[in-house]
């Protein structure tokens, strides 16, 4: 007997289920197919090529009118099912028709999630789910100078953005997370993707929070972010996620969690109702990619045909359908102690591959730029292949398996003379060998004579191998200290490359310079954070998570986990009011210790972390700001009483000290920087052992630099003899900036000057144009950093200083 099957939703899952069913049991079913969309089944995932113009809609239709007819399917397209009566075994259509069924198949897919921002119901705010949405975007392309904003930097959002861009629309992607497609990609791959999209003219804003959709006459006009940025647009696409379409199931009182619950046979809590696709929940999981839905479709067909079958969840993989962005991700790529990474980076080709290995099996893979081997790796993830025998060459893919691991030296020796070694400068192996024969016998000489490895530096290792292969035992490949275990490059190399390759973010550094770890370590991150903010003060945003605790919390941590608080006393000067405010703060916050520091100010030691924002706010009220006693930055400017009081004083040492401190405070430096100004050569402010020290004399000012009085004691060296205060300010600032731009992280000025030589420093600072340019760059940086972090944190970040939760009650119960 022919049974009645009603299907709700002509989607990708139900379409496949019907195909499978008719193949098994061509005569057994009388099918009625409802679809809310006014059309039959089509390949929804190919809407993106339709949007970009690479395909037409007709090409992506999967089931034609003839197919429905041949298989006896009654089509009710453009009609919704509005109710199910599971006792009576009937469904009700939108027009009131009631249809009886023997079996019901639910395949309603999901609903795009719309963030309920103010203005989300304006005209021109759309999702990206069906042909109507696609057509709205295509239509925008015909409008001259059209602008669109896409909220969501996941798979769908990026495909929408890329399609819009190909249609000539000016597109901005606004993404709330720190990097694109964070669910599928790690930061490095996210960085490469962002770069590729930017090259296509798409603007990408990460860590951006939407606040409001601004409209005019009921139509969308702009998106406003919570930092006040307004992004004008004619169309706003929200692609922020989907929710299984469960309303009908809920109304029919089926078991519903996140989706409509089904068992392994795809049967819901009612034995005559099956469900398939994105609307279902199986074993707590919901689905958003077609591969598992096709497996479900097979099981549905078997169950209906009375055969045994069970749905089993498998690994899924993701590819982005944007031409020119080859990326692939599968499995699990979170870090963990038992997990190891194999990372391969080829900066020049923009290739990044990462395999996550656990117990000799590949459990996750991310690749960008070259995804040719992705299926091979995906197979290994699914099969749990033991990779111990091919570990060394695994990342190079199937083509490299079975051979001997290469000896890099032998490989270089075997290169022909016309093999290119340095891509930037087009230097071949033959050129280098010739230079060596002419007497260049170390890296510096090769750089000077051939320019090989003198630009981006990534071929340095290769050049050294050519030297080794040519000179034999006469050449020992130098082992300069790398920055840390994450890279073979030295601090100096990294600084140079950040500038020459214009690397402006940490993921950019990690990728372009071939970092061996996914996100650095506690040694390189603070250094990189400094290099990046010093070189790109306006473009790079300081990363508090890459700072040591003292700089992250703007206070010195003590051995018992409390903190010390040192307000600035400009040039060592204070007032009775300030002292009273400090005393009040000490009382109010039960500060156990008050110490007069060696830097001419007062230290409140033993403040609880939670109290920091409050004590800062109190000190702010009395006009005091952070003393940066915790910072690799400007610390104190000590002064003596000088001309105003002292019978030997030659100049206003206190006033000059205050001016210097007001100019330099807030700036970050490779290590801490301390200054002093003494009013005469008796030098009561100890200016001759400071990083920058001024000794006033009758004729003007002696400016010394590179002194020290910590682990090493060293007298300053004279940088210049100057006649006015303005000159002192200018020279001191120029020296500070030169140090910021060139020194290795954690080198005090005296260590750095010893490396580059005082003569070179003098040459830079004495040349007027260079000096003025240094000062100008310092001021640009100060436009961002000359501010009180205490006030900022007390106002905007105070809650992060408190515990996130207090479970003292719970735990006691």
């Amino acid at each position, binding site marked *: 007997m022919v049974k009645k099957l009603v299907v709700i939703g002509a989607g990708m899952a139900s379409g496949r289920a019907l195909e499978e069913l008719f193949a098994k049991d061509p005569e057994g079913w009388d099918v009625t197919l409802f679809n809310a969309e006014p059309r039959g089944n089509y390949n929804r995932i190919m809407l993106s090529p339709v949007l970009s113009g690479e395909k037409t809609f007709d090409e992506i239709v999967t089931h034609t009118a003839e197919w429905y007819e041949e298989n006896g399917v009654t089509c009710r397209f453009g009609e919704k099912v509005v109710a199910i009566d599971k006792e009576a075994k009937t469904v009700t259509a939108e027009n009131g028709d009631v249809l009886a069924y023997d079996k019901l198949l639910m395949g309603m897919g999901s609903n795009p999630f719309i963030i309920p921002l103010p203005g989300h119901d304006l005209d021109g705010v759309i999702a990206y789910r069906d042909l109507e949405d696609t057509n709205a975007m295509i239509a925008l392309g015909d409008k001259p100078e059209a602008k669109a904003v896409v909220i969501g930097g996941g798979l769908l959002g990026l495909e929408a953005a890329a399609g819009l861009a190909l249609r000539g629309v000016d597109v901005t992607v606004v993404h709330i997370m720190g990097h694109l497609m964070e669910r599928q990609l790690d930061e490095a791959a996210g960085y490469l993707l962002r770069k590729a999209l930017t090259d296509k003219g798409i603007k990408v804003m990460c860590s951006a929070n939407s606040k409001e959709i601004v409209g005019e006459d009921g139509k969308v006009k702009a998106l406003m972010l919570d930092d006040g940025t307004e992004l004008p647009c004619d169309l706003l696409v929200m692609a922020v996620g989907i929710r299984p379409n469960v309303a009908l199931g809920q109304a029919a009182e089926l078991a519903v969690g996140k989706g409509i619950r089904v068992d392994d046979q795809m049967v819901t809590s009612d034995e005559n109702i099956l469900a398939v696709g994105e609307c279902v929940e199986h074993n707590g999981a919901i689905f958003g990619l077609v591969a598992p839905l096709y497996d479900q479709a097979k099981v549905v067909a078997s169950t209906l045909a009375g055969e045994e079958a069970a749905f089993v969840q498998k690994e899924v993989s993701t590819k982005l359908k944007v031409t020119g962005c080859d990326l692939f991700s599968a499995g699990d790529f979170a870090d963990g102690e038992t997990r190891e990474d194999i990372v391969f980076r080829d900066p020049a080709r923009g290739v990044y591959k990462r395999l996550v290995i656990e117990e000799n099996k590949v459990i996750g893979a991310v690749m960008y730029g070259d995804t040719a081997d992705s299926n091979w790796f995906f197979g290994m993830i699914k099969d749990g292949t033991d990779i111990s025998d091919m570990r060394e060459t695994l990342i190079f893919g199937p083509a490299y398996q079975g051979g001997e691991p290469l000896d890099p030296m032998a490989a270089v020796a075997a290169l022909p003379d016309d093999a290119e070694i340095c891509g930037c400068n087009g230097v071949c192996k033959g050129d280098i060998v010739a230079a060596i024969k002419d007497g260049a016998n170390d890296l510096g000489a090769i750089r000077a004579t051939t320019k090989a490895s003198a630009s981006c530096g990534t071929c340095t290792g290769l050049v050294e191998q050519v030297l080794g292969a040519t000179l034999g035992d006469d050449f020992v490949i130098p082992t300069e200290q790398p920055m840390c275990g994450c890279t073979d490059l030295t601090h100096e190399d990294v600084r140079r490359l950040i500038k020459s390759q214009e690397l402006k973010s940490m993921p950019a550094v990690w990728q372009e310079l071939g970092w061996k770890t996914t996100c650095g370590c506690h040694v390189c991150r603070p250094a990189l954070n400094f290099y990046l903010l010093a070189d790109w003060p306006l473009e790079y945003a300081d990363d508090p998570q890459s700072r040591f605790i003292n700089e*992250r919390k703007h206070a010195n941590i003590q051995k018992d986990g409390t903190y010390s608080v040192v307000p600035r006393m400009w040039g060592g000067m204070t007032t009775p009011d300030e002292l009273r405010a400090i005393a009040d703060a000490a009382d109010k916050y039960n500060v156990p210790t008050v110490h007069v520091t060696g830097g001419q100010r007062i230290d409140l030691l033993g403040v609880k972390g939670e109290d920091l924002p409050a004590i800062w706010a109190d000190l702010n009220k009395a006009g005091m700001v952070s003393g940066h006693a915790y910072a690799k930055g400007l610390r104190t400017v000590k002064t003596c009483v000088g001309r105003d009081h002292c019978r030997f004083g030659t100049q206003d040492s206190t006033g000059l000290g205050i001016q210097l401190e007001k100019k330099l405070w807030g700036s970050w430096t490779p290590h801490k920087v301390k200054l002093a100004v003494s009013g005469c050569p008796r030098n009561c402010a100890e200016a001759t052992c400071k990083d920058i020290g001024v000794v006033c004399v009758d004729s003007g000012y002696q400016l010394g630099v590179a002194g020290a009085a910590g682990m090493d004691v060293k007298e300053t060296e004279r940088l210049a003899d100057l006649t006015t205060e303005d000159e002192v300010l200018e020279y001191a600032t120029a020296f500070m900036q030169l140090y910021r731009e060139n020194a290795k992280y954690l080198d005090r000025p005296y260590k750095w000057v010893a490396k580059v030589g005082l003569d070179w420093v003098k040459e830079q600072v004495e040349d007027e144009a260079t000096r003025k340019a240094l000062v100008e760059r310092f001021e640009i940086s100060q436009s961002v950093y000359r501010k009180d972090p205490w006030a900022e944190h007390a106002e905007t970040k105070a809650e992060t200083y408190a515990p*996130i939760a207090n479970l003292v009650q719970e*735990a006691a119960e």
Partner: protein
Amino acid sequence: MSDWIDIGPLEAIAPRGARVVKTAFGCVAVFRTAKDEVYALDNACPHKQGPLAEGIVHGAKVTCPLHNWVFDLETGHAQGADEGQVATYPARVEEGRVLLDVEFLNNRTAA
């Protein structure tokens, strides 16, 4: 039996950061990695009780803010040449909320 308790939204913890949860038996540090995994460990370094929540988080590891010992967040084991282990507690994220297992937090006092 597990008894999950909601301690707050994931956004309240910076990626590669941590926040502290106060309990009757001392503080627990709840870490969030760059990939949004969460881990809960005692907020006291086995070396000299350094507050681990204030350390630098890299991968699934944290470096103690006082003397730079490095701990695996998953197991609590010290890395490299240092020896020691910090107690770890079940933690997970569900729909943007961070959950801790109270049973475990309580049980540790019995130990």
